[in-house]
């Protein structure tokens, strides 16, 4: 599982004076779901376009499945499916006709074509509207049709640019489940997003983008650990003792912050609920509430970009 399928070295894209992507190094392994995460304008789409060979890098190299997207674009595009961020179809054609057209372009033999298209539509639950014009499709249906195209093409790598933008929570959830099921079948997925919760739920690893640089790359807990100091967040509500000083001595506590309404929030390396409860009781307090959550990527995101901005300002 540790074959590198996408490799970027020093990837840079300049538009006149502005740098959209700045010296990016990226290794994506076979079968993993990788998230490119960053605010608007941080260079996610530009990176994706360079990986696909649709935009020429100013410098740096890309290798997708061992091929250079500029020199052997057909080899790369045959294996890679791309879902652009604002996906469009030929509105006057039906869903099936749209898929048939791209299936022909991607060189799927005629004998297999209809079967694969039918299966792909089934897979994304569009079989019942397969012969309706795409004009009548909702945003969520178009997005799923885009995924059906990747399935029909039999892509080994799927590159999805903001696949859930503009979808309601339920459609988002459905789409994420589909993406996760693709990954379960061995497809490598690279997706970009600024919605953190969604990335957290499907991605094995993420890269945090900022101003064209990948500031941090790693699994969500790793990154959370680096940025926040702790992976676990424990909320404590206690009376009758100085909870803050009681718990700050415990080994594994990375930070304690008072909360509005009297409680405290503890950032911890591991699950310290037992120790925290014991410490508060030992200090003579009464424990009223104790809950733990894994830190969300949102916290990481906000914290990371705030510290970066402060560093920039300094």
């Amino acid at each position: 599982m540790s074959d590198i399928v996408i490799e970027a070295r020093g990837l840079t894209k300049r538009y006149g004076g502005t740098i959209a992507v700045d010296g990016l190094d990226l290794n994506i392994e076979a079968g993993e779901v990788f998230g490119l995460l960053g605010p608007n304008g941080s260079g996610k789409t530009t990176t994706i376009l360079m990986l696909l060979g649709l935009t020429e890098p100013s410098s740096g190299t890309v290798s997708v499945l061992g091929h250079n997207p500029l020199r052997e674009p057909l080899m790369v595009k045959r294996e890679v499916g791309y879902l652009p961020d604002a996906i469009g179809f030929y509105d006057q054609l039906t869903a099936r006709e749209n898929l048939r057209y791209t299936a022909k372009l991607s060189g799927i033999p005629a004998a297999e074509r209809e079967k694969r298209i039918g299966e792909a539509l089934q897979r994304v639950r569009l079989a019942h509207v397969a012969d309706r014009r795409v004009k009548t499709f909702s945003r969520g249906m178009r997005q799923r049709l885009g995924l059906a195209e990747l399935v029909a093409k039999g892509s080994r790598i799927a590159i999805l640019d903001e696949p859930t933008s503009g979808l309601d929570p339920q459609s988002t959830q459905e789409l994420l489940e589909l993406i996760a099921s693709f990954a379960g079948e061995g497809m490598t997925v690279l997706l970009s997003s600024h919605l953190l919760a969604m990335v957290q739920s499907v991605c094995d690893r993420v890269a945090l983008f900022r101003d064209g640089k990948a500031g941090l790359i790693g699994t969500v807990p790793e990154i959370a650990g680096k940025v926040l100091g702790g992976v676990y967040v424990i909320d404590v509500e206690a009376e009758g003792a100085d909870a803050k000083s009681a718990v700050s001595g415990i080994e594994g506590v990375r930070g304690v912050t008072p909360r509005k309404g009297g409680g405290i929030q503890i950032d911890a390396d591991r699950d310290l609920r037992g120790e925290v409860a014991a410490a508060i009781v030992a200090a003579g307090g009464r424990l009223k509430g104790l809950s733990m959550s894994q830190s969300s990527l949102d916290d990481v995101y906000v914290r990371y970009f705030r510290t970066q901005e402060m560093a920039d300002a300094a």
Partner: protein
Amino acid sequence: MQRKGSALSGMSTIAWKEAADHFSSARFHFVMLLVLLTAFGGVYGAIGEIKNTIGQDPFLFLRLLTTSKQPVPSFVAFLGFMLPLVSIALAFDGINGEYGRRTMSRILSQPIYRDALLFGKFVGGMIVLTISLLTLWLLVTGLGILTLGLPPSGEEIARGLCFLVACLAYAGVWLALSLFLSTVFRQAATSALAALALWLVFSIFWGMIAHALTAALAPIDPTDPMTLVNAVEWQTGLARLSPNTLFSETASALLNPQTRSLGLVFINQLEGAIPGAPLPFSQSALLVWPQLSGMVAAMLLIFTAAYVTFQRQEVRA
């Protein structure tokens, strides 16, 4: 940089899809209806005129295409005016339409080169034009047989088919031009407007422009007859920059067998010629050769410009 794989894989898929789209689009139906109406108007007018001279003319069928009855212009004149419009309708949103529908990056992420997309769009347009013109030609021939009561001669058919090729070359120039404009402008409305502006310039104003430019570039000195020859040559040269001029010259040489030259003729060059005698087909074909290759060259040149523009474009939609 060396690229691998065929530049044209996927081209025929794209061409046939484009052709199918055109044939089912309301826009195309509309312009074809316009063309059909004007074409029949032209032919109908011609029939009225010809009936008077029937029996005296060996090229009756060709007269059907070239005779005009005031105020209705001839079929050929109508075609010269309307064909660019058909081509513009086919291609003005060829490339920018894909951006507008946001299908461009999805199509280009399939294993094809950009070349295939552009070639496919052009070939698709040419397929549509060929089928439409052939149909029109057959309709007009049938109408002629019905009304005149005699079939066209072999030579008339040969000249007619040659004219068909000239129509295709002419329509191809405008197809390439509007495809080029659709790569240059991101808005379909802008490229349509630009194409229509050029259409008006070339079909209506170019004669005046050529005249004015000639007056400025080659003024006539009344005491020197050579300046007159010079001016005429300038004027024809400038006029021939317009594909419309090339087309009407080609049409007149092919469909009027009496046409002996498409430029200035001196009286001493006519020595021994029988005035009004028709040229054989092969000589007429020779006569239009430069015009025809001029149109094909213009088409290739404009298509190359479109190609270069498109290859450099960033695809972000």
